[in-house]
């Protein structure tokens, strides 16, 4: 194969110099365009022409998600893109991803994305303490639903491609929402409501641009994930306003900060928007059917016989009940901790009032503990240590015959 010359334009930014950065051009002899990845292109330039060039990679086989960059106007993995994938007539243009602070040249700081994972509670929290893995058929609907989304390698390509990330500082971005979605659909996860509440506001920022879906190197569609969360919230979200406030104080500061220009532009858009809204408001008013996120009604659910709950212990019981909300009805399972430590029966929520992780009672220390951030509660549920803002939440209960009933 004869070698061809390709012009390669690489974005350079040197933190020691600062400034805006810009492209530098290199000319590269390409021996075999179909066997040369963008990583090879960069490594060749680095070895032969300019050792100061910086880029990031680890696995070089599309598994780690370290090498995302904008290649000829599109987010791609450098290790998965070959020279032959780009039209020979074009220069090769390599530029860091959008929406992440640039450390040097093509290397970006991906912490803003990891922080969003935390804010949307995009981590698994077991619903109940099990010792055996859940029995779930491979073709169970929940698994069919999220199969692909669990392959996310957190490369950030989707975050870079989504223009809304830049306009809404609170927006969690497609990657975190794709993970939130996979957890929301996962029947083993215990933070259903909390995560739904944390993820939903972000979903409203999605404008169905489908850029994320176009660029994902793993074929995941965050767009689809976002729509799924919205649909689920429509029928299943319980409105719990106070939880949102608690998060406010704890959440790490948003890293996608709004600068002044954006703010002013934003304000301008808001004025025009308001004017348009007034013109069309009447139409909208007629078509609106009212709020759709309905709160589930409370009901008494039976826990079982009191005699089955051992004295002097805390027992976690999984309640399964049918909940009606609007025209839908579904089975909900909810864990409740029932304390018979003293004569009085107390029914606690298992969700930690801090961020909603699962709280367990530890017999050894005679305390309730939350593994996430070390919240500790005494036997009556009052906070002893850690970040929880208040005592463990309780359910109301009553006794009918030998049965214990809880108001859910």
């Amino acid at each position: 194969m004869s070698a061809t010359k390709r012009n390669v334009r690489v974005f350079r930014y040197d933190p020691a110099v600062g400034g805006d950065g810009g492209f530098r051009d290199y000319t590269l002899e390409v021996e075999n365009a179909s066997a040369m990845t963008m990583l090879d292109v960069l490594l060749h330039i680095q070895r032969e022409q300019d050792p100061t060039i910086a880029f990031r990679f680890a696995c070089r086989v599309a598994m780690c998600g370290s090498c995302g960059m904008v290649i000829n106007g599109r987010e791609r993995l450098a290790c998965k893109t070959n020279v032959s994938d780009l039209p020979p007539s074009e220069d090769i243009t390599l530029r860091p991803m959008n929406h992440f602070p640039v450390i040097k040249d093509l290397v970006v700081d991906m912490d803003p994305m990891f922080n969003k994972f935390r804010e949307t509670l995009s981590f698994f929290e077991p619903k109940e303490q099990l010792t055996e893995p859940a029995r779930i058929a491979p073709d169970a609907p929940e698994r069919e639903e999220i199969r692909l989304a669990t392959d996310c390698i957190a490369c950030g390509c989707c975050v870079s491609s989504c223009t809304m990330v830049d306009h809404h500082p609170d927006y969690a971005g497609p990657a975190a929402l794709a993970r939130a979605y996979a957890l929301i659909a996962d029947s083993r996860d215990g933070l259903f409501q909390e995560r739904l509440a944390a993820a939903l506001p972000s979903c409203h920022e999605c404008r169905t641009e489908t850029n994320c879906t176009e660029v994902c190197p793993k074929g995941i569609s965050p767009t689809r994930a976002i729509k799924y969360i919205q649909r689920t919230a429509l029928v299943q979200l319980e409105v719990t306003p106070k939880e949102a406030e608690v998060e406010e104080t704890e959440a790490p500061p948003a890293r996608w900060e709004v600068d002044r220009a954006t703010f002013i532009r934003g304000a301008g858009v808001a004025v025009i928007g308001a004017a348009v809204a007034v013109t069309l408001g009447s139409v909208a008013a007629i078509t609106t059917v009212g709020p759709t996120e309905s709160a589930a009604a409370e009901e008494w659910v039976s826990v079982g016989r009191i005699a089955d709950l051992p004295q002097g212990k805390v027992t976690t019981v999984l309640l399964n009940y049918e909940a009606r909300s609007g025209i839908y009805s579904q089975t909900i399972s909810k864990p409740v901790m029932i304390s018979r430590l003293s004569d009085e029966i107390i029914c606690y929520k298992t969700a930690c009032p801090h961020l909603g992780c699962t709280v367990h009672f530890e017999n050894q220390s005679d305390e309730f503990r939350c593994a996430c951030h070390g919240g500790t509660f005494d036997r009556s549920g009052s906070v002893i240590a850690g970040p929880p803002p208040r005592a463990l939440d309780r359910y109301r209960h009553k006794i009918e015959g030998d049965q214990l009933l809880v108001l859910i």
Partner: protein
Amino acid sequence: MTQSVKADLLIVGMGAAASMAALYALDANPDLNILIVTKALKGKGGCSRMVQGGFNVVLHPMDSHEKHFMDTLKGGQYINKQDLAYTLVTEATATIKEMETRFGCFFDRNPDGTIHQKPFAGQSYDRTVHKGDLTGIEIMSRLTEQVIKRGIPVLEETRAVDLLLDESGKTVTGALLFDMRRGDFLVAEAGATLVATGGGPTQYRFHAPGPEKSVDGLGMLYRAGAVMMDMEMVQFHPTGLIIPGSVVAGALLEEGLRGAGAYLFNGNGERYMLNYAPDVAERATRDVVSRSSYIEMTSGRATPEGGVYIQASHLGPEFVLKNFPGMAERCRQFGYDLARGRVPISPTAHFVMGGAAVDLNGQSSLEKLFVAGEDAGGVHGANRLGGNGICESCVLGRQVGKALSKHLHNGNRALATTRKDQVKETADRLLRPFTRDSGPSPFDLRKRIKEMNWNKVGVVRDGPHLTEALAEIDAIADEASRMRVSGGRNYNMMYTAAVDLLSMIDVSRMVATSALAREETRGAHSRSDFPKQRDDYGLFNSNLRRGSDGKPVIEKTPVAFTRKSLEECQNYRKG
């Protein structure tokens, strides 16, 4: 003055072993101050992520820990540390269950909803748990997410360059770190230090682990004076892709291809495996196939690409595309057609069985120093079974995490005092490449050491070549002491290559020294001048430590048959 940080527990690396240790240590002891440092981004570096095959564990009632244990010893050709291997197989069951129930991993299922287990080479029962062929991504993504959830601080792109020692040289006080972004050193001192940087033999021409890895942990442990064992045992995977001129070269084609019946051909178009292993041919174990391919390649029967061919097309293109979509895609990216044609491959350096000598708690020979994962040695003996690698990292990472939480609970959190001047001496020495006006390029030296290792300390070794190799390593080390790095200190990749090289030099020296001392062929170690396994001679572990002249000193200790006798091992599944 160098910036410094203090913690109760310093964890170097963020692969499966490191993350499991962090999670278990913290969950058992929530007020521990843990600090994780990693050379890459959170959870993105290392081999755990790259695991395709899966995780060996006994789950089925028909299977037993006994069988898994015996398979492991058989694979390791009897020189495993039996107690470690026994812990590995017995604790694996609980570990995999906890990874599902506590951390949210989800592995592939049987139709009845239980966890699916597939066959893997060298196993008497199908016991490999997997998630498609991306098991590592599932494990690492879930573990990383749990680390983030617990808010454990992680210093990204901060590599450890050396362990710090107290005045006596017997106690590890922490590690000297290099923040690659700022281009500056950072001293981390801790009540205990866990090294889990995951080996990764990238000092060869072809290697399967990502090029970001550079046997740093092994180099660091050795320099600190820890006892290392069985360093001659480097596993070569028989099917690494050849892609001339690309970093992707050496990336794996799955073992399952051979299992499914793929053929191997040499440059003359002969199915050479029929000569080496007439009964099983291509289905022979990794070491046998790698060795055979290597002999073909070095006997003038290589393909134009310098390797051999793998062919799967006779299995039917549809079959290949359906069962190995990822592999077909990987080949297609480089213009090879796995489903219809032949693809050039070569053995590729895959895994280091050797490592620090540790006890069941991961404690090394130095005080306050713990090691887990691929950096630790002994579990796999002379050869690792496919699927026992990630298993080791998760299971023993978990054990070490639990042990550490206890250890640090018992009043062991106090920091020892680092030897005066160690930080300054090391930092000054390491920064010198920036100050020189001329000198060899680390890129060139790295290439040289890779070629040297491949040709002389590679798949098949012999005495004269190993002796030559040791001399050449000295020469490379000498040049490395005069290296020059250009450019500023922020995110300087040339400098990264320079520091990587220093680890590679130390490890190459250990491998060559141990290889020379073992005058037999056993497991992954094969000597053309001693082509037979000699059970009357070879049942020892090569313990090695850094001598006063900086060269490795080797001491052979007999294998302790604490659970199974030699006869039991030899008679297991004979034939």
